[in-house]
């Protein structure tokens, strides 16, 4: 089982707290009163079948969607809704689903974009540090981002988020469409970052891998939290049943 981060002084107040979050798209209710919290330096895993609202949850935290009800707090202060650029400035970065890198820009340009919330002067130093950590990206710095492989793009997306020196990172299905070996690398990276103190919310379909890595988890279904608890506990639950239901003619 993944290691717990035992900090000497555990922070009682959560770094990120979601209370009663309800999000609607027109007549569809995507999230219905979701409560969730993340402690400093934790990895919290969010699981559930497609359409459960996992992405919507992350995007609402990141400020892309305005909730119909409920609030997201960072260190006790409410995060602005509908203003993703301000949320990023406050230290919450997202690695979006499907990576969403700018295919028509170079690797270096993508990274520079990630540094938008930070002063121009610090850009060069951040870039050097990132290239140190991601040698493959350094190699391909002048290539068009659209020509990178899936795994490299995922690295780029994470590196890009790191350029903003965030305190909280939200990962939306980072293993999507990647080969298992690459997924291993990505998850290792996520773990390393957590060890360096980055608070993390990880949305995944790859439930077992994610629970291996995470500290705590929530299971969403149809916009509601249907299970929560320490990762070890969730790991031994019958998730197949939750996902697939009862098989057999009705």
């Amino acid at each position, binding site marked *: 089982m993944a290691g717990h981060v035992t900090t000497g002084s555990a922070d009682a107040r959560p770094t990120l707290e979601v209370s009663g979050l309800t999000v609607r798209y027109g007549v569809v209710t995507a999230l219905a009163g979701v409560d969730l919290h993340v402690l400093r330096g934790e990895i919290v895993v969010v699981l559930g079948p497609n359409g459960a609202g996992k992405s919507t949850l992350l995007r609402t935290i990141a400020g892309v969607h305005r909730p119909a009800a409920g609030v997201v707090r960072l260190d006790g202060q409410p995060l602005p809704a509908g203003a993703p650029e301000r949320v*990023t400035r406050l230290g919450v970065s997202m690695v979006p689903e499907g990576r969403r890198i*700018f295919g028509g820009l170079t690797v270096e340009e993508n990274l520079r974009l990630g540094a*938008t919330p930070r002063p121009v002067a610090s850009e060069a130093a951040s870039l050097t540090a990132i290239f140190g950590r991601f040698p493959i990206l350094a190699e391909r710095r002048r290539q068009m981002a659209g020509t990178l492989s899936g795994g490299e793009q995922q690295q780029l997306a994470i590196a890009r988020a790191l350029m*903003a020196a965030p305190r909280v990172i939200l990962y939306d299905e980072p293993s999507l469409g990647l080969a298992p070996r690459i997924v291993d690398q990505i998850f290792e990276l996520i773990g390393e970052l957590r060890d360096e103190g980055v608070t993390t919310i990880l949305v995944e379909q790859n439930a077992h891998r994610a629970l291996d890595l995470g500290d705590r988890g929530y299971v969403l279904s149809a916009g509601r939290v249907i299970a929560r608890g320490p990762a070890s506990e969730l790991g031994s639950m019958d998730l197949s049943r939750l996902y697939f239901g009862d098989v057999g003619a009705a």
Partner: protein
Amino acid sequence: MSFDAFAQQLINALSLGSIYAVLALGLAMVYSTLGILNFAYGELITIVGYTMFFASEAGMPFILMAALGIVVAGAASVAMQAVIFRPLRGANFVTLLFASFALSQVLQGLFRQAISPRSKGIPTPDLFSDFIQIGAVRVGVLALITLAVALSTMAVLLLFMRRSRAGLQMRAAAQDLTTARILGVRTDRVIPLAFLVSGLMAGVGGVLWIARTTSVNPGTGFTPILVAFVAIVLGGLGSIPGAVIGAFAFGALEIMLQAYLPGAIVPFQFAIALVAVAVVLVVRPQGLLGHEVEVKV
């Protein structure tokens, strides 16, 4: 046709095409970032003309008139964004197009009433009507200057878009606005910036156009802007290189028609050019460089 006559026409075509290209780039700037076609863009040229007119009345030398015209165009474009496009943010394409159309009518009416419905002449340096000899070919000075100025402007724009932080943010916003915002790009800065750049391009294009026509009237901006629109649609909506190519193509077409059409048909040259473009669009609806996009159902 003799070589030097052809070369002369070629330079003319390139020169005219380069003005259209600068204008088309300005329009495309706003279109690619926001998906809006600003109908009132043409009025920016008219504004350049009137600015230059009043500056000339005040005795300014041409170069200052031109600089002032460019600055005013940029400011006017930003003003348009604040007054019309910002309140209508989120409205659909047709509504925005129509609102900008309404704006252009208001401005034209304003010029007609507040200034005059008649043309006003604008003095240009004698230099512009000279010719110089390059080898066997006699080339107009103005054509060369136009080409030089237009190309340098496009080069500056390219540099800005590729090298500066702001330019990078604009390019990102044009490709994927939501993700750009997630990364921290501020739309309330990027959008007015796009309009400013667009206005400056209109300014440069406008100065070059006025230098060519030496007069301004309330409807001045109309023809060049129509060409810019056509160039963008011809090149493929959403493609910046397409806009430039479409512009040069149209400029060449116009000059060639002018040179080779029998006299009686010359007044129809613009109409013929438009029909030619329509034919191209029927054969290739997405334009010369437009591309297929996945349908989101």
